[in-house]
């Protein structure tokens, strides 16, 4: 965040809670799109599983040995997925547009505001993510540094999940209109292959979601509310070479 406003040397800062400050972390557009995306993706997964129910064919295993079948029978009963194909399709094909529009809006927004810089991984991200993982699993003591807003593992997963979002959309349209959009279907290896991709993406979303919830819970209430309020409280440097204090002063002046 670059701010060229300078404090007026005549009026020294009022030391109201000198060590804490709230810094803008998620802009309004990002927040709204994040929270709009949440119910949409839940609806897409749920209606997608109602579709999958009609032809339950995917399993993990080697040759004839089946290790895990998607899904056990109780799963369908618990989530009301039985005998709901027509409704599943109706929800899926209507909400697909909303999910797609929100996704496109998010990318345009992220690009126009430059927010993407906070999210793109680089060559070191893979290595850095491993450090984060080891730290999170309490195998390593030192906390790996953040690069800007996010640490390397966050950069990697957030970029990946946005990519997955687009893969869900592309594979979705590829199996939605395999003739009219035959080029897309061809790129994804044909109808059957696009369908496997579409399902795999769904599973990946669910896994991401579980880890995401866990990490947000671990990061605490104030991190969570930053996705609602936009701001996160940070401790400022008391040594005087405080990056943020001039801005804060001018802001308080403006508030006053």
């Amino acid at each position: 965040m670059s701010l060229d406003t300078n404090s007026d040397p005549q009026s020294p800062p009022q030391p109201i809670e000198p060590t804490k400050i709230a810094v803008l972390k998620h802009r309004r557009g990002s927040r709204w799109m994040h929270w709009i995306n949440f119910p949409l993706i839940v609806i897409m997964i749920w209606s997608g599983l109602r579709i999958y129910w009609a032809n339950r064919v995917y399993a993990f295993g080697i040759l004839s040995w089946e290790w895990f079948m998607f899904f056990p029978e109780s799963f369908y009963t618990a989530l009301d997925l039985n005998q709901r194909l027509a409704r599943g399709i109706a929800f899926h094909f209507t909400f697909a547009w909303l999910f797609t529009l929100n996704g496109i809006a998010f990318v345009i927004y992220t690009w126009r505001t430059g927010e993407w810089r906070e999210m793109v991984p680089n060559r070191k991200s893979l290595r850095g993510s491993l450090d984060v993982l080891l730290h999170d699993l309490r195998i390593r003591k030192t906390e790996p540094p953040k690069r800007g807003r996010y640490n390397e593992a966050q950069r990697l997963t957030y970029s990946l999940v946005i990519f997955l979002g687009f893969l869900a959309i592309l594979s979705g349209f590829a199996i939605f209109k395999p003739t009219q959009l035959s080029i897309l279907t061809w790129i994804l290896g044909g109808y059957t292959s696009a369908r496997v991709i579409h399902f795999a993406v769904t599973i990946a979303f669910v896994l991401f979601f579980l880890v995401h919830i866990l990490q947000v819970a671990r990061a605490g209430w104030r991190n969570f509310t930053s996705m609602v309020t936009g701001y996160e409280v940070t401790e400022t440097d008391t040594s005087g070479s405080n990056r943020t204090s001039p801005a804060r002063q001018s802001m308080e002046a403006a508030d006053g």
Partner: protein
Amino acid sequence: MAEKPELSMAAYRQRTRRSLLTGGLAALAGFAGWRWVQDQPQSHNIPTVLRKGHEFNEAVWSGLFREDHQARTFSRSAASILRVNGRQGLRSEIDLADWQFTVKGPDGTTLGTHVLNDIKQLDYFETTIEHKCIEGWAQITNWGGARFRDFMRLYEDQLPDNISHVYLETPDSQYYVSVDIETMRHDQTMLTYNNLGVPIDELHGAPLRLTTPLKYGIKQLKRIGEIQFLTEAGRDYWGERGYDWYAGL
């Protein structure tokens, strides 16, 4: 309004209260929207807004329809006999030797009747395509028969210009579909009597069925008993049961 990059703690607290309130209201609105969708009056077994969603998709994709765009074809060796799915309309006995079907105009008047040999008089056409079921499976198979377009030519003089759909039903009227005319006129839409080079068997629609790779299997009516040309969409068995009337691929 641009958001400030930083807030004092006092401003932050106020902000938090306000945002949590907005968030709570938005969540409530979202939930209300969800209830609203669920509690909609039904339109053929699905909430009306979702039926509108299907109709929106139909408008988009029929608008993008190109008659010269073909569904992918495969080598004949990849083809196999389809799994049997859906026996609606096939449950009654049929005497293949005695079978015939009628053709009707939009007002319901009978324009003609045909036996299988009439269809066999038309140019023979064979194709290997991927058949897709709305339940989620797909299989490559081979169909042989006449193009529907060639068949329709027999009636062109007797039909008004504004034919928009073709309605087909089984001899016992238990299964019926309505298909848009653009799809019916397409190269790959056929009155099919051969499967993998031999006459089609009963469970796959003997003696004559509709096939087209441009629609899901639900539209590809087996055992034709009647064909009617329409100036608007007609009844549709699965459409009435909550599925999309268009069901295009």
